[in-house]
């Protein structure tokens, strides 16, 4: 079974548009969406509402920066500190152009930093490329399940 994509996005419109974009990418991966940093960590660490979920890390985490409760950078930091999670590819998908955010993200070990384009076509293209690259092309780190093609 394919590893899922974890989408962390609090804005419902962005969530919808991203899901549409992912849908248009024809990816077979399941997309799990969560609405803030706490939920994201709950899923990744299999606790709270996700305590019973199947084992295994997602193929990629698409992470927004501005999130309620725990923000994107904090989630990223936690992922990189957790031995079981640290090798998950993380892509920041955000509105922010701010240099400081880009800088902090790369310091914390992000795999890619993508600013959502305003144009929808460009957005769809960007998300598709991301999905294809991280969920399909990219060789996952050893120890994690290989996606079955």
């Amino acid at each position, binding site marked *: 079974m394919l590893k899922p994509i974890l989408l962390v996005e609090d804005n419902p419109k962005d969530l919808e548009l991203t899901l549409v974009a992912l849908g248009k990418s024809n990816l077979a991966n399941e997309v799990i969406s969560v609405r803030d940093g706490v939920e994201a960590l709950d899923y990744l660490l299999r606790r709270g509402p996700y305590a019973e979920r199947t084992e295994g890390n997602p193929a990629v985490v698409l992470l927004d920066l501005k999130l309620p409760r725990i923000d994107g950078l904090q989630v990223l930091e936690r992922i990189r500190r957790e031995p079981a999670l640290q090798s998950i590819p993380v892509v920041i998908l955000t509105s922010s*152009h701010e*240099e400081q955010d880009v800088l902090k993200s790369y310091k914390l070990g992000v795999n890619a930093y993508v600013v959502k384009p*305003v144009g929808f076509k460009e957005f769809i293209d960007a998300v598709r490329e991301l999905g294809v690259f991280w969920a399909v092309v990219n060789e996952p780190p050893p120890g994690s399940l290989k996606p079955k093609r």
Partner: protein
Amino acid sequence: MTSESTTFDPAASARSECDREPIHIPGSIQPHGMLLALDARHRVIQASRNAPEFLERPLGRILDEAIQDVLGQPATETLAPMFEPFLEDCQPRYLGVVPVDLPGRSALFGLIAHRYRGVLILELEPLIAERPAGIENIYPLSNTFIARVQQTRTLDELTRMASIELRRLTGFDRVLIYRFEADWSGTVIAEDRNDVFPSLMDHRFPATDIPMPARELYRHNRLRLIADADYAPVPIVPADRPDTGRPLDLTYSALRSVSPIHIEYMKNMGTIASMSISILREGQLWGLISCHHGEPKVVPFATRTACDLLGQVFSLQLEAREHHAEFERRIELKSIQVNLLAHMAAEEDYRDGLARDPATLLSLASARGAAIVAEDRCELIGETPSEIEVRRLVAWLSATGEKEVYETSSISSVFPEAAAYSDRASGLLAVSISKLHPSYILWFRPEVTRTIKWAGDPTRAPAYDSGKKQISPRKSFQLWQETVRHKAIPFRPSEIEAAVEFRNAVIGIVLRNAEEMAELSEELERSNKELEAFSYSVSHDLRAPFRHIAGYSELLRESAGTRLNDGERRYLDVIIGSAQQAGTLVDSLLAFSRMGRQKLNYQAIDMNELFRETIQEVSLGLDAGRKIEWRMADLPVVSGDMIMLRQVARNLLSNAVKFTETQPETVIEVGSSSGETETIFFVKDNGVGFDMEYVGKLFGVFQRLHRVEEFEGTGIGLANVRRIVGRHGGRTWAEGELGVGATFFFSLPKRPTDLESRL
């Protein structure tokens, strides 16, 4: 001057000789009176040899006799207050006129008494054809004088009036007012005379004319009469005090015999009789009222008593005048200070406030020139040395020490090179504002070339009589002129004090300014942070809705596309296009704001390389049909932020490309020229150009000179160029002509240290 000891040379050796002359124990008195010395039991232990003539009894019946038996009851009663055992050594007292018992009759004598070193010394002068010196007689003599001197306003008037009144009162041929200078030389500042003597007005006498012991005597003994320079001294017998075996100390004696040197001095001056009245100020000898006569002259006792009184009145008036003058000056200085401080407080930089009102600044120190000197500026006001000279002077000042206020009337005497500009600056008053960054306010006074009329040549060697081991007085009082150079009128104590106060006030303002600056920069930092937070949230939150509009519109077009007619589809396209354009605007604006905040990362940049790469970059996006002739001159290496300057090149080149697209043949030229302090670059095109009338709008944010349909763009490119170049300390400008082309210039300052360290 008529001093009791004298020479005319200011050499130190001469002075010390004079300073040693024992003028207080001459062993004799002048003949116009007699002297009796009494022991504690009121017995006569010493007497002048002329006492028998006055008292009409032999010396044997004077010495060792009780004073009551010598002078009789009435005179002794007058003396009673002097007999008080607890009475300390004291100044002579004029006890008035007393009757003295003579064989078969009684005669009137003026009586002066004082106690000194264990003896009571009585001095008696017979009254010569005059009224008794009672208060009823002294008063009429004095009151005109007092009334007149009180009417005077200035020191000059006062001294002039005093000399006239004293001559009228005493009948001397010449009356001088003589003032001591700081070095104890003396100047005649007022004079009244008849034709007997020449004028000595404004003449200066060397300090050695009135050496230290003489000055001490003047201080103790306020009035001194020498009735006849040709007198025969009257010895005191026995010569030594029986109780101590030493000569009688005549320090306070009015009749004390005159030093032979002084007699000679008087004779050399042609003076036969003289009288001097000491003028004391706050206990110190300020000057003398000196009276000269060409013939012997015994000034009546009552007149002398009046003169003594008038001398004291004069001293008091003098003190009042000087205090008053200083007080007025102080008030004036205060108001000047207040004015200056108000100016200073009103300006951002206190020095601007100081320089704004030059006349007031100068008047604070009655100066003709001033300078405000700090590391970064040197403001010269009025008559001053050149900036280089002032800076050298300040360097010397700050090297000499940490005095907050420095003052001299002759800079060149301590800083020789100042002689070169003594015509502008001989006097200096300097206050230091800050030691950390040497910063001074200086006031200058020009040289006052003064001619001093010395009474005789002060530089001539003294006549030294080796046989007598004594200095001989000078023979000549002929005018000898000396020109004093490199000296200004000294700053007055009130002016120096005002400078100190002023310095404190300035420091107060400087400190306040520093605090305000700190507050301001704190505020600036805060608002910068706010701005950052603002743009951060704009970047997140403002972009999102535009994205959503574009996204959902796109979805609508996809799902409903076939059901919509052409007009409806166009509406959707406009919505999508506008949303995208708004998003781009937000992005440009954020980039522009980032450009202003980002720290510059200086490095050496080869502008050839930078422009060549940028030309390649913009050529990539060109429409297939376009042909551009690039002309690039050899460009220099500069120091700057690589990323930002690349942005500048990109904006200018893409503009040039954009505004030439309507031309059949495009020529774009890049060049530079090197100035003394900056390097100028330009990008020149042969495009549509612009009307110079609108050149001021070119570099503004969102300013466009063309309609959107003509040339696309957000209108922020040139604003970015200006901001980036401005942050490098450079300038931006443009020239253009409609339909001919445009040239955009920018300059970058040369940073020698930077380049050297990095290249």
